[in-house]
C-alpha cells in the first residue's frame, strides 16, 4: 500500500494518514509543479492567441487553415494521446494502490509507446505539409501553425525523455519517495499536454475545417 487513503489534499498524494512526514515533504513539491504548469499554460495560451491572429491575417497567399489541417490525422493523434492519458492513469493507480512495480512499469511503457506513436503521426503531418511546399517560411500562418504544434510536440518529446529517465531511476533507486513524487509530476505534465492538445484540436483542426 504505497499511497493508502487519507486526507487527499492533492490528487494521488494522500499518504497523510500513513506517513505524515512524507506527505508534508511531498506536498510543496507537487504544489510547485502545479504552479509551473500554470506558467506553461500561459505559454501555450499566448501561442494560441498568436495562432488565432495569424490564421486570419497571416495567410499571405499561402494555404488556409482548412487546407493545412488534416482532420483525419488529427483524429488518430487525438485517439493516441487520449489513450496514453488513460494508460498513465492506470500507471498512477498502480503507484497509489498496489505496490506493484511490474504493473506500473508496464502501463508506463505502454503510455510511452502511445506517445511515440503520437509523435510519429505528427512528424508525418509536418513532413507532408513541407512536402507540399507549405513550410513554415512560406507564410505567417504556417509559421504560427508549425510553432504551436511544434511546441506541443517538443513538450511530448520532453515528457518521453523524462519517462525514460524514470525507467532508469525505478531500476536504480526503486520506488522511493523522490521517484514516486516524480512519477506523479510526470503524470500531471502528461495530462496537461492532453488538455492543451484538446485546445489545439479545437482551435487548429476543428475551427480550421469549418473556416
Amino acid at each position: 500500500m504505497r499511497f493508502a487513503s487519507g486526507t487527499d489534499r492533492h490528487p494521488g498524494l494522500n499518504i497523510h494518514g500513513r506517513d505524515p512526514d512524507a506527505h508534508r515533504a511531498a506536498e510543496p513539491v507537487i504544489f510547485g509543479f502545479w504552479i509551473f504548469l500554470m506558467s506553461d499554460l500561459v505559454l501555450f495560451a499566448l501561442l494560441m492567441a498568436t495562432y488565432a491572429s495569424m490564421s486570419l491575417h497571416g495567410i499571405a497567399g499561402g494555404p488556409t487553415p482548412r487546407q493545412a489541417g488534416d482532420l483525419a490525422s488529427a483524429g488518430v493523434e487525438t485517439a493516441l494521446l487520449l489513450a496514453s492519458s488513460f494508460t498513465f492513469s492506470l500507471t498512477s493507480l498502480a503507484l497509489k494502490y498496489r505496490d506493484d512495480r511490474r504493473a506500473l512499469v508496464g502501463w508506463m511503457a505502454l503510455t510511452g509507446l502511445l506517445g511515440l506513436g503520437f509523435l510519429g503521426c505528427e512528424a508525418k503531418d509536418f513532413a507532408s505539409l513541407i512536402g507540399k511546399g507549405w513550410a513554415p517560411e512560406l507564410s505567417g500562418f504556417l509559421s504560427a501553425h508549425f510553432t504551436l504544434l511544434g511546441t506541443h510536440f517538443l513538450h511530448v518529446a520532453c515528457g518521453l525523455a523524462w519517462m525514460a529517465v524514470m525507467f532508469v531511476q525505478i531500476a536504480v533507486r526503486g520506488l522511493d519517495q523522490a521517484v514516486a513524487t516524480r512519477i506523479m509530476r510526470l503524470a500531471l505534465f502528461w495530462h496537461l499536454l492532453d488538455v492543451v492538445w484538446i485546445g489545439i484540436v479545437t482551435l487548429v483542426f476543428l475551427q480550421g475545417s469549418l473556416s
Partner: protein
Amino acid sequence: MPTFTQDWTYWLFGLLRWSDFPPKADGIATFAASLVVLGALAVVGLVTRSGRWRWLWREWLTSLDHKKIGVMYIVLAFVMLSRAVIEAILMRTQQASAIGQAGVVSADHFAQLFTTHGSIMIFFMAMPFLTGLINYVMPLQIGARDLSFPFLNAVGLWLTAAGAALMMASLVVGKFSTGGWSGYPPYTELGFSPGEGVDYWIWAVSLSSIGSTVTGLNFAVTIYKKRCPGMDLLRMPLFCWTALCTSILMIFAMPALTVATALLALDRYLGFHFFTNGAGGDVMNYANLFWIFGHPEVYILILPAFGVWSEVISTFSGKHLYGYISLVGATMAIAVLSFTVWLHHFFTMGQEANVNAAFGIATMLIGIPTGVKVYDWILTMVRGRIRFIAPMLFAITFLLCFVIGGLSGVMLADPAIDFAVHNTLFLVAHFHNMLIPGTLFGMLAAYMLWFPKAFGFRLDEIWGRIAWALWSAGFLVAFMPLYPLGLMAMMRRTAQTTRAEYAPWLWTAEVGAVLIGLGLAALFVQLWVSVRNRARLAAPLGDPWDGHSLEWATPSPPPEWNFAVPPEVSGRDAFTALKAQGIAYREPERYEAISLPRGTGIPVVIGGAGFVCAFGLTWHIWWAALAGLFAMWGGVVWRSFQTDLERTVEAGEVAATHRHWLSRVHAVTPVGRDAETSADNRGLAEHEA
C-alpha cells in the same frame, strides 16, 4: 544569415572572426572592452593571490543557502549597475555635445548604448537586485529556514548570471543590438539588423527570463507553504506581500517574454514570418506579446520596492505600518490591474479610439491603489518619531519624486496627450522618474537597511548621507530637464540634433548624470569605509534599528539555519510583540537537529552550460549550442540521481551557537534610538513603550 558553406571555419567558429575581437573601430568601445577584460583578470588575480578559490567555491558559488544566493544576486546587480550608469553618463554626454555636430560616439554605438543600458537596468540590475533581496529577507521574515526549492533557487541565480555574462561578452566580442531594450521588429529582423547584435539580446534576455520564472515560482511556493506557526498571510510583513505579488506576476508575465523572444529567434534563425514586413508577418503581435510581459514587469520592479518603503518608513518612524490591510489590498489590486494596461505602450499604433480609451482609463485606475499607498506611508510617519538616517532619507526623496512621476504617468495615460509626447524625452523622464526614486532608491535603501543583518556591521552613515544627497540631486538635475525637452519635441534615442535651444537643458541633464555617477562612487566609498571600520560599526546582536519583523530576531549574520527553533507568531510585527513581552531573547526549552541542503556545483555547471549554449547560438557555433543545451539538461538529470542531498546539524551544535549569541545579548546594554548611529549600537535595541 550565412550562406550554407562547408567551410571548416564555419563549422568550428560559426560567424565568429578575428575582426570581432578588440581592438574595436572606436576608442571608447576598445576602452570598454579592455575594462571588462581587465576587470575579470583583476578579480581572478585577487582571488588567486589571496588563495581563496577553494573558499569561494565551497562557501559561496556552490551554496544553496538562500542568504548567500541573495547576496550573490546583489553583487551581480551592483556590477551591472556600474556598467549601466557609465553608459548613461556617456549617452548624456553624447546628446549634450552632439547638437549640430558629431559628438563623442557614432550613431550606431549610441544605439548600442541605449539598448544595453535599458536591458541591463531592467534584466540585470533591477531584477537581480530585487530577487536577491527577496531571497535574503523573505524566508527570514516568514520564519522559514530556506526557500522551498534551494536547488532551483541556485539554478535561477546562475542562469541570470549567465545572461549577465553574455551582456559583458558582447562588449568584448562583436556588437550588441541597436534595437532598444524592447527589441521591436521589424527593425530587429534579419533584413534590418543582420549580425550578432540582436541575437545577443535575445539569448541574454531569454536566460534571465527563464531564471526569473523559476525564481518567482519558488518564492510563491515558499510564501504559501513555509510560513512558521501562527504566520497567517495577513500577519506577514508587507515586504512579503509585495514579494508574493511580484512572484505571481513573474509566473504569469515571464512566459510572454519567452514567447516574444522565441518567435523573434524563429524569424531570425529559421526564416519564419511572425513579425516580418512581408509574407503575413505582423509586428503588432510582437508589440502585444512584449508588453503583456512588459507592463507587469514594471510592477515586478516596483512592488518589492513598495515593500521596502513600508519596512523603512515604519521602522524609522518607530511605528506600526498605517493601513496594513489597505496596503495589502492595494498591492493585490496593482498586481491584477497590471495585466489590463499593456496597450498604453502603443496608443499610437493604430487601434481605434475606443480601445485606446478603455486602456487609458484602466491605466489611470492604477493611480488609485498607488495613491492609497502613498497616503498610508505618509500617515505612518504622522506623529512618529522619525530618524532621518540614510534609508529614511531615501524614502523622503522617493515620496516626493514618485508623486511627480505618477502625475506625469496619469498625463501619459490620456491617449490624446500620449499622441503628442509619445517617443519623446517626456516619456523617458516619466519612466526614469518612477524607476529611479521608486525601484532603485528602494533597492539602495534596502541595501542600507539589511546590510547589517547580512554582514554583522552597519554601513557608514556619513557616506550614506553623501550618497543619498548625490543620488537625489543627481536624479532631479538629470531628469527634470527631460520633461521640458520632451515638450520641446526632442525625440528619445536621438544620437544627434540640430536645435540649439536644447543645449542648456541637455547640459543640465549632463551635470545630473555626473552627480549620479558620483553617487554611485559614494556607495562604493561607503562600502570601503564601512569594511575598514567594521569593528566600530559591528552590530552582531542582530537588531540595530529596533526592527519589527522576525529577521531582526536572529543574530547578524544569521546562522545557516536561520532560527534555532521555528518561531511562533501571534500577530503582526512579531518581533516587536516579542520585545514588548520581554521574551525576545528567551532560551527555547529544547533544541532539535536541523537538516540543511548540501552545497552542489551543479547549478554553476548549468549556468555555465547556459552561457555556452547562448554564445553558440549567437554566433551560429552549432556544436557549442548543442553541447551547452545537453550539458544543461544533463546537469538536471545528474541531480535527479543524487540521493544524499541534506546534511544534519546536531541539536547540540544548534544549542551551542544559540546560547553563545544569547549570552552576548545579555552581556550588552541596550541602546536607545538616539544612539542608533553611534558605536554603542551593537544590535540590541532598548525597548521603548
